[in-house]
């Protein structure tokens, strides 16, 4: 009883809170990094160097008036942000943050499959938000989101198949263990797959340069145009939680998860004294930093161009990658 119910529950509570707090600091990080890229300071008023801005933002969102437009579909309008947020949180269950069972909630043998399926649900929140708002800009955003999801989900899933072939397992924990045994991070064996998942991850989390569903300059905020207060906050939370998920997935699948650099080199065994979760978090931080950096640098694609890249470039490459991986696997 204690092992099957109590400890997992404690872990879930701790994890959820950790995710929420990291999201708040993630927004602060994003604002700061972008500010530095743009030769300005970013938030500086709340607390030293604006550190407490991370708490000021959620407080502001929670105390704001929460408006439901008169012509909106009330139930769907309320449901949409929840539908967007829950999957983003649920997937954290299968992500291993360290080598000990203490650092993950569940190690299920189809972890990767679970992750793909649950993250796909998140987009329904966006589509529903666009539709339920009964407003034209969100509607366009909802259409864009569904088109984008279909284009990218296939490419990313195909790419993940080649990772599964390389690692020989679907369990997130065992994928990392496989990387320890071979001594090679999958990122070095499958660089193409890494790039594809990174691009697909950007598209799935609606991040620049693929942020069409919220394109503020075109659709004035897109699907959350009509949302205010904490309901908008939930979308925000979901988006950043998704970013963290993608960064964790990229690290686990390609960059050795919690493993230290060069896991096979005995001379670096000294690095093992650094706890595994620190490796995991620092790698995730690098990926997140990359996301923010990309946002500060690149313009936005147009959505038909995004679809073209998805269908005509990424999916063929992903399929070719799977075939080549399979052939190599059989031959060796």
């Amino acid at each position, binding site marked *: 009883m204690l092992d099957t119910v109590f400890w997992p529950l404690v872990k879930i509570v701790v994890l959820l809170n950790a995710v929420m707090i990291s999201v708040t600091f993630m927004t602060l990080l994003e604002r700061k990094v*972008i500010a530095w*890229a*743009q*030769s*300005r300071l970013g938030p500086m008023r709340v607390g030293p160097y604006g550190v407490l801005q991370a708490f000021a933002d959620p407080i502001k969102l929670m105390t704001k008036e929460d408006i439901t437009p008169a012509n909106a579909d009330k139930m769907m309008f309320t449901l949409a942000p929840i539908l967007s947020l829950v999957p983003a949180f649920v997937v954290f269950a299968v992500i291993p943050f360290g080598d000990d069972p203490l650092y993950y909630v569940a190690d299920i043998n189809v972890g990767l499959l679970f992750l793909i399926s649950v993250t796909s649900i998140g987009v329904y929140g966006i589509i529903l938000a666009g539709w339920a708002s009964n407003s*034209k*800009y969100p509607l*366009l955003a909802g*259409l*864009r989101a569904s088109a984008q999801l279909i284009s990218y989900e296939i490419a990313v899933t195909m790419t993940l198949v080649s990772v599964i072939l390389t690692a020989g397992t679907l369990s997130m924990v065992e994928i990392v263990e496989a990387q320890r045994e071979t001594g090679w991070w999958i990122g070095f064996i499958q660089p193409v797959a890494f790039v594809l998942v990174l691009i697909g991850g950007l598209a799935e989390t609606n991040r*620049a*340069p693929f*942020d*069409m569903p919220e*394109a*503020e*300059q*075109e*659709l*004035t905020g897109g699907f959350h145009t009509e949302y205010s207060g904490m309901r908008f906050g939930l979308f925000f939370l979901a988006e950043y939680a998704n970013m963290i998920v993608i960064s964790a997935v990229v690290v686990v699948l390609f960059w050795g998860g919690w493993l230290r650099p060069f896991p096979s080199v005995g001379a670096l065994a000294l690095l093992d004294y650094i706890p595994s979760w620190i490796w995991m978090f620092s790698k995730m931080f690098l990926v997140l930093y990359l996301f923010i950096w990309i946002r*500060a*640098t*690149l*313009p*936005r*694609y*147009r*959505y*038909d*161009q995004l679809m073209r890249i998805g269908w005509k470039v990424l999916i063929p490459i992903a399929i070719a990658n799977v075939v080549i991986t399979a052939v190599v696997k059989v031959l060796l």
Partner: protein
Amino acid sequence: MATESAAMFDTDELVLNMGPQHPSTHGVLRLVLRLDGERVKDVDVVMGYVHRGIEKLSENRDWTQIILLTDRMDYVAAATNNLGYCETVEKLMEVEVPRRARYIRTILAELQRIASHCLWLGTHAMDIGAMTVFLYAFRERELILDLFEEYCGARLTYNSMRIGGLPLDLPSGWDDKARAFCDIMDSKVAEYEELLTNNRIWLERTRGIGVISGADAIALGLCGPPLRGSAVNRDVRKDEPYAAYDEFDFDIPIGTRGDTYDRYLIRLEEFRQSIRIIRQALDGLPEGPVMGKVPRLLKPKAGETYHAIESPKGELGYFIVSDGRATNPYRFRVRPPSFCNLQGLRPLVIGHLVADVVALIGTIDVVLGEVDR
């Protein structure tokens, strides 16, 4: 097949109201888009939200007071508006402007062109999603505003010229600061280019978007970079030199394809050419007075005149009628480049996607204060 499915399903076009409060309509432009999916089938351009009746107001102000009103038209390029107006009245009154004043006017006008293009580049890039360029461009625009502030005390609406010359000579040390700015700006233009010119996404978003042929551009009365982008060699600075432009070497960049990317390249090249003009003007700045001989009470003799200059947005013309009796114009009419270029928006936009609409509003570079007046 397409008509068959259209008959089977109830298809309806979506009427989308873009603006007047929209982040990318550059002020209070309103577009009523008729969409088929995201493709624009038709667009109505609605304007007039900042109409202040500047032309009518001017007919009830004396000649000097009008300079102040011209500031409020294209408020991101106030100095060129002043210049156009002052030169028109000078032409009407046949006033000789001292050479030093003409040089300084040229410097101010070219600084203004850089400032206006900075704002254009920033907002245009922002519309397409590249937000960093926006802050970079504004950083450099700030330096120009500082130069203007030091010269005339104002940062946006300068009121920086007078009929017959200039109210003030350059402060001491100003020319060195302007030179230093030119050096900074040279490297910054390279920085903008690094971020955008060869950026794949930028190319995909601007190449082949909003193509207009030279003949169509002329028929629509386009002017400035949108006209030159379509390979029409027309620049008032070269064709009908005013101020001191006939004394400097500079090139007029011309596009080839007439698309958004060409217009972008042209404006970036204009940054460099403006810097070139400013450097030449600073080096050759003659000594002498900055104010010509002008009667204390301005009362031009009866007559009418039209005079145009090349503002950052295109050909800015003033048509002024004086009845010879009053101290105010009898008729005051502006040919604003933004207004004329806005005529080109509808043919440019039709057939493109919603995302391109904001890029196209950006590429024609309108300031609504000037469109509505």
